[in-house]
C-alpha cells in the first residue's frame, strides 16, 4: 500500500510538471519528458448508439505523432512564422482523476482527465478541450518518460480553431 501511494504521488507530480511545462510554453522541457519511442495519438470522437461502442474511431487520428514529428511541431513553434500561436494562446491544463491502471517494475499505465482551457488572442469566449488521457510511462535511467499518450476529446466537432497546442 505504502509503495502504491508513493507511486501515485510520483505519477501525479509528473503529470502536473508536464502541464506546467506546456502551459509555460517550455516545449523543449516537455520534449525531455518523452521517450524516444513515443506514440502520441488522438482518435476521433463520434456519435454512436450505446450498443455500437466504442464511440470513437482510431481509423481517423487528429494527432498521429512519434518523436520525429513531435520535434518537427516544436521546431515549427520556434520559427517566427508559426502564426497559429503568435502570439501564443494562454493555456491551462487541469489534470485530474489520475488512476494507475497497470504497473510493473518500470512501467505504469495511467488514465486521467484533461480539461484544457485555451484563450486565444482577444477572444472573450474560451475554448475548452475536455477529454480522457491514457498514458504509458516508463522508467528510463531513473526518470519517468512518456512512452505513449492516447487522448480522446469529448467533442465530436472541436470547439477550437485548430490543434496548434499539445493535449
Amino acid at each position, binding site marked *: 500500500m505504502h509503495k502504491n501511494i508513493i507511486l501515485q504521488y510520483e505519477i501525479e507530480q509528473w503529470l502536473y510538471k508536464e502541464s506546467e511545462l506546456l502551459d509555460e510554453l517550455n516545449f523543449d522541457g516537455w520534449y525531455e519528458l518523452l521517450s524516444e519511442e513515443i506514440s502520441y495519438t*488522438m482518435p*476521433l470522437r*463520434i*456519435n*454512436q*448508439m450505446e450498443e*455500437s461502442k466504442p464511440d470513437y*474511431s*482510431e*481509423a*481517423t*487520428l*487528429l*494527432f*498521429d*505523432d512519434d518523436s*520525429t*514529428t513531435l520535434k*518537427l*511541431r516544436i*521546431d*515549427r513553434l520556434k*520559427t517566427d*512564422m*508559426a*502564426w*497559429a*500561436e503568435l502570439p501564443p494562446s494562454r493555456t491551462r491544463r487541469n489534470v485530474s482523476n489520475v488512476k494507475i491502471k497497470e504497473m510493473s517494475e518500470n512501467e505504469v499505465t495511467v488514465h486521467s482527465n484533461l480539461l484544457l482551457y485555451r484563450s486565444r*488572442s482577444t477572444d472573450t469566449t474560451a475554448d475548452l478541450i475536455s477529454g480522457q488521457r491514457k498514458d504509458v510511462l516508463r522508467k528510463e535511467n531513473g526518470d519517468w518518460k512518456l512512452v505513449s499518450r492516447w487522448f480522446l476529446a469529448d467533442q*465530436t*466537432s*472541436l*470547439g*477550437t*480553431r*485548430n*490543434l*496548434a497546442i499539445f493535449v
Partner: protein
Amino acid sequence: MTTTSTKQVPRLDEMTRSELIQYLKDTVKPEEGLIPSYIFSHPKVYELEMEKIFLRDWLFVAHKSEIPNKGDFVTREMGGQSVIVTHGADGEIHVLLNVCTHRGMKLCRMDNGNQKNFTCPYHGFNFKNTGDLIGIPFQKVVYGDTMDKSKMGLKEIRHAVYADLIFATLDADAVSLDEFLGDIKWYLDLAFNRAEMEVVGLPQKWNVDGTWKLGSDNTISDSYHTLVSHGSIAKLGLVPTGDYSKYGYQIYTGNGHGLNLGMPNPDGFAFPESLIDEYKERLSKDQYDILKQMKNMIVCVSPNIMILISSMDLKGQKISQTSLRIWKPTGPDSMEISSWVLVEKNATEEWKRLSEQAFTLTFGASGIFEQDDTENFTDITQNSKSPYHLQENIVFNYTMGMHQDQVEDFVGPGIVYKDKFNEANSRAFFRNWLDQITAE
C-alpha cells in the same frame, strides 16, 4: 455645442430585398478586383447566401466508399439541414431528410452505422433505410384507416454521383450535376478517378470563427499566401524556400469552380509506383501526363469544397496525400471545417499509413500547414464586422495578375494562367457568387 455629422452607415438590415441586391451590385466589383469587407460577415448577406447558394447548389455529402455495404449510413448536413445518406436495402444510395414525417423529430442522431430501419425517438414511427415508412405504433387504434403510410416516407433529396463523390441538392429544379460541375470534372478525375479511392475513417471536424467564403477564396486562387502564412514550413526545410508555390497553373472552369495546379514536381513522382498501370488505364494520356508532373493540386468546387493533393518528404519517403474538405457555414461569421482523407485502395498498407500520417501532420485539425490558415480566416472575418467598414465602404484588393495573359496551349480545359500567383480565380469566384446571390 452639438455637431451633427452627415456620415451614415448603410443599414442593410433596413433595406428591402431589391435595395439590398442593388447595394451588392453597386459595391462588389469582381472584375475591378474590388471586394468590400462587409460581405465577409454581414447577416443580411449570409441570409442571401443560404437561400440562393446553399439551398440551390449541388453540395458534397459523402464518398461512396463510406457506405460500401447495404445498410451503411452516414449523417451529414447541407444547407443547415441534417440528412441521412444510406446504402439502402434496395442497393441504391438514398439521401434522406433527417426529419421524421410525423412531427419533425431528428430521426437519426448518430454519425454513422449500419441499420435496416430507423425508429423515431419521439413516437416510434419506423422507417426503412430506403425512406419508406413501415411501422406506426398502434396504427389501427390511433389512425383507424385514415393513415396512408406510402405517402409518409422520408423526404428524398435529389442526389447524383461523380467520381464516387455523392452530391445532393435541395433544389429539385437545379441543373444536372454534370452541367453544374462542367469542366472541373477533368481535374476531379485526377483526384478521385485516377485510381479506386477510399475514405479513411470519418471526417475530422473543427470550428473556426471565420466565414466559409474565405476558405473557398483561399482555395481557388491563393498560392501567394504560402510564402508567408506557411513560411514556417519552408524554414523547417519541408518545402523549398522562395517562390516554389508560384510554379504551375491557375485554372478557372466556370460556375465558381477552379484550381491551382503546382507543377513540375522537382522531387519526382509522389504516387505509388505500383499503381502506374491503374492510373494509366483510368486517366486519359493528357491527364496522366499532368499527374506525372504534379507537385500539388488545390481545387475549389463551389460553393464550399476544397480538394487537395499535396506531396512531401516524410521519414525519408516521398509521399502524396489526397483530401477533401467542406467549409460548412454555421453563421454569418463562422464555419465548421470537415475534412476527409482518401487513399488509393490498391496501394500497400504501408503506403496508406504514411499517406494518412502525412495528412494528419499537415492538413488535419492539428496540421502544421492547416493551423496558420485559420488565423487569417478568423481575423479577416472579425475585422469585417465593424460598422466602420460599411460606413467607409472599405474594399479589399483582388487585382493581382490583371496584367497577365491567358495561356492557350495547356492540355486541360478552362481559362488558364501560367503560374499561380494570381487572383484571377478569386475575381471569377466572386463574380459567380454575386450573380448567384443577386439572382431574382
